[in-house]
C-alpha cells in the first residue's frame, strides 16, 4: 500500500506528459477496437469511451495501491487506467485465454483482480453495491483502502444506485462514487431520463458529500478524486464525484445515432476533447505529440498482434470456473 506522505492533491507537472500518453493510449485503443469490430474481427457488444479518457485516467491516477474499482458497460478506459495491460484487454475482446477475463467475460465483463479491478458490469448500477460491500470490508478490517465505483448519468435512475449509495453513507464506508455524466443514456438525453439538470443533487438524498468537476479536464478530475479519496480514506464517509463529461461517439459501436443532433458530437470534439486540452496546456509541439502518438499506436498495434496470436479456449472450457 502506498504511503500516506506520498499522496499529492495535484498532478505533478512531470507526470502530466505521462497522463497525456495514457489518455492517448486509451483513445487509440478504442479507435482500434472500433476498427476491428467493424472489420468483423470482434464478437459481442462493445461500448467505447472515446472522449471520456480524462475521467478514467484522472480518477485511477489518484488511487493508491490497494484501492479497488468497479466499472460499467463502458469499461475499456477504466480497465486500462487501472493498470491492465493493453495486450490482456485486447486479448479479452478477441475472446482469448490470454485475456484479462480469460475469454469468459468480454467487453462488458472485464476483471483484473490483481490490479484492483473488481469488474465491469453489463447491468446498469449492478456494480455499485459491490463497492459499498468492498468498502465495508476495508472498514471492518481497518485497512486504509478505498473502493471506487464508476457509473453514468443514466444509472442514477436505477434503484440499485439509490440503495448502494444510501447504505454507503449510512455506514460511512470508504467509498467514492464517480458519476461520468455524459448527458446521454444510450439514445435518451438527460432531459428525458432525469428530472434534474444538476445530477450532483442526487447526493442530497443521502446527505453525501458531493464534489463537482470538469470531467474533460484530467487535472480537475485528479484533484476532485484526490480530495474525495482523502475524505473517504480518513473515515469521513463516502463521496459522490460529479464529472461533467461528453460522449463523442455512438452509445455502442455501430450506433447510427439517429436520435442525436447532427453537430453535437462534432462541436464537443472541437471544444471539449480532454486530450487536446491537456496537450495545449502542456504546449506540446506537433512533433512531440506525434512521438507520443507513435508510441501508443505501436502499443495498440502490438496488442492486436498479441490478441490475434492468442489461444482460443477449448469449447469444453465453458464448463470450468462455474464453481470454486
Amino acid at each position, binding site marked *: 500500500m502506498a504511503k500516506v506522505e506520498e499522496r499529492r492533491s495535484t498532478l505533478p507537472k512531470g507526470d502530466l506528459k505521462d497522463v497525456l500518453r495514457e489518455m492517448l493510449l486509451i483513445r487509440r485503443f478504442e479507435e482500434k477496437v472500433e476498427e476491428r469490430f467493424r472489420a468483423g474481427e470482434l*464478437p*459481442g*457488444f462493445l461500448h467505447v469511451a472515446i472522449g471520456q479518457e480524462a475521467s478514467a485516467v484522472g480518477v485511477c491516477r489518484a488511487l493508491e495501491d490497494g484501492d479497488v474499482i468497479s466499472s460499467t458497460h463502458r469499461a475499456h478506459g477504466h480497465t486500462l487506467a487501472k493498470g491492465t495491460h493493453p495486450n490482456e484487454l485486447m486479448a*479479452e475482446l478477441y*475472446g*482469448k485465454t490470454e485475456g484479462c*477475463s480469460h*475469454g*469468459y*467475460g*468480454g*467487453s*462488458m*465483463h472485464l476483471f483484473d483482480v490483481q490490479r484492483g479491478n473488481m469488474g465491469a*458490469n*453489463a*447491468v*446498469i*448500477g*449492478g456494480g455499485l453495491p459491490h463497492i459499498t460491500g468492498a468498502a465495508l470490508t476495508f472498514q471492518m478490517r481497518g485497512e486504509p483502502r478505498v473502493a471506487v465505483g464508476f457509473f453514468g448519468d*443514466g*444509472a442514477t*435512475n*436505477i*434503484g*440499485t444506485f439509490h440503495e448502494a449509495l444510501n447504505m454507503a453513507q449510512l455506514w460511512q464506508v470508504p467509498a467514492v462514487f464517480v458519476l461520468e455524466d455524459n448527458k446521454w*443514456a*444510450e*439514445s*435518451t438525453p438527460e432531459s*428525458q*431520463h*432525469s428530472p434534474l439538470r444538476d445530477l450532483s443533487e442526487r447526493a442530497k438524498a443521502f446527505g453525501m458529500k458531493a464534489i463537482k468537476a470538469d470531467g474533460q479536464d484530467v487535472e480537475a478530475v485528479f484533484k476532485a478524486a484526490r480530495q474525495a479519496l482523502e475524505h473517504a480514506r480518513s473515515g469521513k464517509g463516502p463521496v459522490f464525484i460529479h464529472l461533467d463529461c461528453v460522449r463523442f461517439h455512438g452509445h455502442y459501436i455501430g450506433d447510427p445515432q*439517429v*436520435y442525436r443532433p447532427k453537430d453535437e458530437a462534432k462541436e464537443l470534439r472541437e471544444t471539449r476533447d480532454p486530450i487536446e486540452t491537456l496537450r495545449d496546456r502542456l504546449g506540446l509541439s506537433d512533433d512531440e505529440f506525434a512521438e507520443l502518438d507513435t508510441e501508443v499506436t505501436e502499443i495498440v498495434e502490438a496488442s492486436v498482434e498479441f490478441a490475434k496470436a492468442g489461444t*482460443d*479456449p*477449448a*469449447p*469444453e*472450457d*465453458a*464448463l470450468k470456473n*462455474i464453481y470454486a
Partner: protein
Amino acid sequence: MPEITYREAVRDAIATAMRESDDVFIMGEDIAEMGGSMGVTQGLLEEFGKERVRNTPISEMALAGAAIGAAMQGMRPIAEIMYEDFLTLAAEQIVNQAAKVRYMSGGQLTVPVVFRTQGGAGWSPGAQHAQQLESWFVHIPGLKVIFASTPEDVRGLLWSAIHDDNPVVFFEHRTLYGIKGSVPEKIEAIPIGKARVHREGEDVTVIATGRLVHEALKAAEEAESQGISVEVVDPRTLQPLDEETLVASVKKTNRAVVAHEAVTRMGFGAEVASVLQYQAFDWLDAPIERVGAKFAPLPFAPVMEQFVVPHADDVLQAVLRTVGKS
C-alpha cells in the same frame, strides 16, 4: 399472404393495437427516437407521439410497476424490458404485484399489462445479456407466459396478449428478429394456450420453443433423411400450457424430446417432461430427452458460447437416442 420479418410482426401488432385503442401504449428504455435496442419500435414515435411511445429512465422496477398501476386504471400498457436478464430487476413487480393483484383483491381488479422482453445467445454479449428465464414466470400463478417463434405467431400472440385482461410475460428471441415468414393480411388473434404443430411425424415428437423450434425443424429434416419421422410442436404459450396437444402427439409417436435454449436444469423442459411422463406414461417407449443449454453462465468467447447453447445437432442426437440409434 405478405412476407414480413419477426421484427415487423411485433411492430405491426403493437402499432395496430395502438391505432385501435388509446388505452394501448408502450413504454421502455430507448424505444422512442432510437426505436428500441432491437429496432422493433422504429417508426412508432413518429406515428403515435412521445406520450404513447414513452422512453423511460433506466428504472426497470418503476417501469414495470408504473405499467401495472396504469393497467389497474384501465390502460393496456406494453412495458418493454430491454433484455430478459433485466427481468431480475422487475421481478418483484411482475411476480408479487402484477400476478397477484387480481387475486389479492378478490377479483376487483384486472391488470392487462404485457411485459415484452427479448434475449438469447449467439452473438457473444457475455453472461448478463442473453440468458433465458422463461421458466421462472411459468412457476408464478397469475401470469401468462408466451414465447413465439415465427412472424405469424409472434404477431397473432402479441395481439392476443395485448387484448388479454391478465399480465402476460412475452418473450421474443433476439436471433429471430430477422427471420421472414408469411402472415395473414389482417392480424388474426392466436388463442393463448394453443400449441402449434409445425410438422407432423410418426416416430418422435420434438417439443421446442423459441429459436429451438427452427433448430428442431432442421433436425427433423436431417432425421427424415435417416428414415425417422419427427413431429415438431411449439407450445407457444408456456402458461397456460396446451397439455392436450402435447400429450396427444406423444401418444402417437411414443417418444419425446423437449428443446429450448434455456439451461436444461429446471428449464421449461422439466415441466413438459413431467407432464408427459405422467399423462402418457404407458405410451412412452423411451425416456424423454431434454435439450437445453449446458449448466453454465453464458461465456463470452464464441467457441464456448456455441458449446453451451443447443443447436440442431443436439436435437438430432436426442431424437436418435430416443429411437435407439445413437
